[in-house]
């Protein structure tokens, strides 16, 4: 299925933890401007694969290619430098800090020279507000503390932050798992807008309806391998379930 639009290719990734083989030669591809879903039962290796792509784990073997060039994703920072941002399931937000502070932790804008560098608070507030309002419908004020935000707002903040750094790939792990219907719809809207802006989104989800709604392409994982791929336009929830359980061969 490799086309010129392919932005990321993972080829034959393996990863073991002690005697547990979490990945046994998993291969997937992702396309630019599409939402690619990754589904599979618990323990199928989805999280490990995603962690390899976001630089948290280093695969024991296998290659990751970005735009045709092999890359070494040695750390989350390295992955980030290659334009891969991850929205972690725990969102990695500091609740005691404000929205704009969370946007810029680790990448603060400063002004001044040498040791006399101070935070450029206004610039950060404005940029965070722009980034957030570009994606989220009901964007919370950037000066509010994350602790006061709803689950959906937090998710939107985390996604907007990941998207806001010129990233070409955004990985999301169960972005709506803990959300109600309305909030889920809002977060899905954020994901759509992100896709429309040309970003490739890798979506891990247990919700088949959501996968069929949001994604264009699905990879099914079982026992440490990506066993099947489908265009969402050519598949159904029943088929996906069958592929996950192994009731139906790829």
């Amino acid at each position, binding site marked *: 299925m490799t086309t010129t639009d392919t932005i990321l290719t993972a080829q034959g990734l393996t990863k073991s933890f002690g005697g547990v083989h979490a990945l046994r030669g998993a291969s997937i591809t992702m396309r630019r401007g599409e939402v690619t879903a990754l589904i599979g039962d618990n323990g199928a290796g989805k999280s490990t694969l995603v962690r390899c792509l976001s630089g948290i784990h280093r695969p024991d073997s296998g290659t990751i290619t970005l735009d045709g060039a092999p890359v070494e994703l040695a750390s*989350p920072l390295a992955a980030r430098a290659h334009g891969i941002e991850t929205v*972690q399931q*725990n*969102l*990695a937000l*500091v609740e*005691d800090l404000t929205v704009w502070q969370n946007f810029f932790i680790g990448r603060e804008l400063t002004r001044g020279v040498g040791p006399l*560098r101070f*935070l450029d608070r206004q610039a950060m507030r404005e940029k965070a507000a722009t980034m957030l309002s570009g994606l989220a419908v009901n964007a919370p004020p950037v000066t509010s503390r994350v602790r006061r935000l709803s689950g959906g707002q937090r998710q939107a903040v985390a996604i907007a932050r990941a998207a806001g750094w010129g990233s070409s790939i955004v990985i999301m792990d169960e972005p709506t798992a803990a959300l109600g219907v309305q909030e889920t719809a809002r977060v899905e809207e954020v994901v759509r807008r992100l896709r429309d802006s040309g970003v490739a989104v890798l979506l891990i989800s247990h919700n088949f309806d959501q996968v069929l709604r949001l994604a264009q392409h699905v990879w099914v994982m079982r026992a440490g391998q990506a066993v099947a791929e489908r265009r969402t336009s050519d598949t159904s929830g029943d088929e996906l379930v069958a592929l996950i359980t192994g009731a139906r061969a790829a």
Partner: protein
Amino acid sequence: MRAGTANAPAAAETVAPALPGRVSAAVAETRRLSFWAENAAPIGLVALVVVFSILSPTFLTLGNIQAMLIAAAILVILAVAQSFVITTGGIDLSISATMTVGAVGFGLVFRAGGSFWVAALVAVLAATAIGVVNGLLVAKGKVTDFIATLGTLGVATGAALILTDGKPISVLSPELLRLTTGRLGVVGYPFVVAVVIGVLAWVVMFRTRYGLHVQAVGGSEEAAVANGVKAPRVRIAVYVWAAALAGLASILLVARIGAAEPAINTNYLLNSIAAVVLGGVSLTGGRAKIVGPVLGALLLTALTNGLTLLAVSQFYQPLAVGLVVVLAALLTRFQKR
């Protein structure tokens, strides 16, 4: 404070009959409690000043205020230092022992013929070295902050006793004399130093990248690290800065006493933590405050000063400090999060 506890039941009685009234009163009560909790240090300070100035005519005289500010300087600096550590969710139990080591270092160098400035430099460096050990133990050795700094507290106290043979080293230096007696306007130099430290600490905490990282690590280390903050480095730095500030405070201490004493100074340790708690900083970290701990330090100093003026036995002072701190800690439960 006495007035506050007397008012509360009275207010509850007046609205007791009507149920909607009781509900709205309860809402007002929580609002009032959170207001108290947020501003425990300034409110407490004002209350103490009012009470003591009524009970003692000397309390609000210029001379006494000057004396109080000078007496508060060391505690203000230690409280600011402790506030940085506590914001990361840690605690520095060795802070006063570190100050003692600084003082002893100052005394030894001075006795050996070193100038004031050399002695002062050695004081800060000796103290900073302990901070480096604390930082490495906590951040790299993954030793619980409580235990690590308890250990360095013992080591530092012992070292100070060994180095001085347990005897104070008297220090007579014109610079130290100027430091204790000199004034900028009506404010003594020690308090000027403390205010400068307080302002710098505020700027660092709220206006620099480092300060934001301190708050982020304290709020959620996991999230901070995921966003590229080097948490171990941030943690080491807070202990190093806290110790360096303790070293600076040790110079004020030597100036105040006129000698370098290998004393344990437990009071300073407990009061530095107490001031931070009074200042509304949560011991779990994440919410930074600088003005609060400074006011907390002033409050504790005013409390001791006022009790002394009222000729209350010294034995009652730790009791009073303890009660105030426990009350403040209870109040912080009602802070808005």
